[in-house]
């Protein structure tokens, strides 16, 4: 695969750089095993979202392992790059996976900004693309394309579900608090759309530069405004710190803390008692009763020694969707149209409950209301059922 690259480098050599560089080919990589399908993982392995990236990778790998290491008879080979949740590197790394590594399937990522850049390139390249987390509305909205599939959520979708639960829980006024970036804004926009339509009042919007974790100013503002509740979207390390600082500022017993489930997922242990009573809404929860979840949790615990979270489910389901598609085309990734059509039609029982795609290839799914208690996201009930995103289908 890399003969053209060697030529490129040879030509550099011919251009007088040979002496300089020792005539070496910097882009060369060993060709992958014949017959294997190459899946490129663009996931954060560092930074505030690193734990999320790891969970997604584990979920995906576990699914493939559970199928004996092959989908539709084709071995799956993963190639991972660390995107550091840094948008500036997104384009370069995506190019590297698609054109450098020549992956058959691209899977990524957590950060919405990185995902937006990735999807732009993936659309042009037409490579089969799975988005296992980043909820940027545009990915299955303005940027949507037949080759792009999301197995997680759209940001607005989660915000809407949370607003429904908060209204149902009797919350009338709230402050929103999030990072000032696409995901945060969309989570808030979706929330406000439904919350205000349902008679709720948003007192104030607080937005911090991403990924700032100095929350003192925000907490002081919240304390000064004394709202009934805070609707807050943070994730990963930032979420853990927000919950702890929220309690440390003495707000825990005065103001209800609500948010999309990312606020508490993966940080249940880290926040300890400070997190007790935080209510969140998500398309996954601890204590679901479906058999798929029971099996999934058992396998995950056995493989990695920790309980899975929503990110692991999203990674798992991404491979499940790919599995459906590959099975339909007999493992031939070159039949892209058929592959993508089959994937778009995927409908199966996921650990999160029933899974199917909307017209935008974003999941239509159930959202659960949970409360963090003693280090567990305890299921309180269903917040919204069969909720789709607001996207209106692709333009192209």
């Amino acid at each position, binding site marked *: 695969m890399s003969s053209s690259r060697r030529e490129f480098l040879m030509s550099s050599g011919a251009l007088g750089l040979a002496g300089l560089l020792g005539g070496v080919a910097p882009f060369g990589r060993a060709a992958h095993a014949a017959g294997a399908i190459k899946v490129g993982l663009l996931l954060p*392995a*560092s*930074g*505030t979202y*690193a*734990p999320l990236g790891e969970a997604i990778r584990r979920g995906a790998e576990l699914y493939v392992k559970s199928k004996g290491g092959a989908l539709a008879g084709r071995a799956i080979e993963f190639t991972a790059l*660390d995107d550091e949740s840094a948008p500036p590197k997104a384009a370069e790394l995506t190019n590297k996976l698609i054109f450098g590594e020549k992956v058959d399937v691209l899977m990524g990522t957590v950060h919405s900004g990185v995902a937006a850049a990735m999807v732009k390139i993936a659309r042009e390249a037409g490579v089969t693309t799975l988005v296992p987390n980043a909820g940027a509305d545009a990915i299955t909205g303005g940027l949507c394309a037949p080759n792009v599939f999301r197995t997680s959520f759209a940001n607005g979708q989660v915000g809407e579900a949370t607003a429904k639960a908060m209204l149902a829980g009797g919350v009338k006024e709230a402050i929103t608090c999030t990072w000032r970036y696409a995901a945060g804004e969309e989570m808030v926009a979706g929330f406000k759309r439904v919350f205000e339509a349902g008679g709720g009042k948003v007192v104030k919007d*607080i*937005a*911090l*530069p991403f990924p700032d*974790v*100095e929350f*003192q*100013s*925000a*907490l*002081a*503002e*919240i*304390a*000064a405004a*004394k709202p009934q509740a805070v609707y807050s979207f943070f994730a*990963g*390390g930032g979420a*853990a*710190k927000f919950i*702890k*600082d929220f309690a*440390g*500022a*003495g*707000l825990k017993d*005065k*103001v209800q803390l609500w948010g999309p489930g990312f606020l508490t997922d993966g940080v249940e242990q*880290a926040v300890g008692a400070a997190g007790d009573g935080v209510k969140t809404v998500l398309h996954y929860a601890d204590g679901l009763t479906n058999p798929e979840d029971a099996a999934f949790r058992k396998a995950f615990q056995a493989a990695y020694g920790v309980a899975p979270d929503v990110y692991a489910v999203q990674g798992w389901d991404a491979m499940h969707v790919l599995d459906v598609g590959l099975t339909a085309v007999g493992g031939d990734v070159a039949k892209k149209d058929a592959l993508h059509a089959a994937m778009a039609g995927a409908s199966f029982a996921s650990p999160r409950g029933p899974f199917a795609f909307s017209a935008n290839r974003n999941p239509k799914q159930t959202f659960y209301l949970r409360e963090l208690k003693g280090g567990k996201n305890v299921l309180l009930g269903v917040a919204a059922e069969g909720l789709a995103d607001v996207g209106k289908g692709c333009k192209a």
Partner: protein
Amino acid sequence: MDLVLVQIFNGIQYGFLIFLAASGLTLVFGILGVINLAHGSFYMLGAYLALSLTEATGDVFLACLLGIPLAAVFGWAIERLFIRRLYGRDHLQQVLLTFALILIFNEVQRMLWGNYPHSVPAPTWLSGSIRLTDTLAYPIYRLALTVICAALAAAMFFVIRKTGVGRLIRAGESNREMTELLGFDANRLYGLVFAAGVALAALAGMLAAPVESVYPGIGERILIISFVVVVIGGIGSLEGAFLGALAIGVADALGKVFLPDFAGVLVYALMATVLVVRPAGLFGRTIR
């Protein structure tokens, strides 16, 4: 109104912390004449030392006690190996070499401690909160941090003003040649000052670890802020750095509440304004 007061307090607390980091930078720059871009890496080193040593000892203050000498020795070695070659060279080379050091330090951090963010627990005996208003409480560790930083600032001023080492540092800052003519080896003085600068940055990182959480690249924000503080205060001026740090801290805290979109711009705008009005910073350039 409460909010303003609370924010001023938050700003002062943040200001003290950046003073600790910036004081090392201003000393190194004022006396050695070296632009040290790697200063933030030493803050990062401190934060990670706090992480490891707190795990080992169970208390972040014990970690500080162990970490300070470690950081100082590390700084002394870095001065011997690299910084010493930069004296008298032009700024371009100083910028480059210390920039290259950042690349190396960041990667070493990744090798030793990995990429995940970690949190460092505040000591249990300081883990509560004090109620400020009926809705707002303030974590005791943050209060303690403010007190400790204030005490350290006072100690630093005492050392600089009242002790033999302080005299020598001030002398070296104003006239290197004359200190040598009086029999003091400037290279040793420079090694000492650099080690002290590293220890101060690391100490700031160690103390901040419980409130900031520890993550890769933690030093870079503090690096740029420290430079802003040094320029506002006047190169080599501890008083200037002190006032500059407090001004930046308060401006940042108030900006976050009242001009949320422009809080980041505000800090640099403050520096630009100071430079236009007083091109050499608030306090000329000698340490008294």
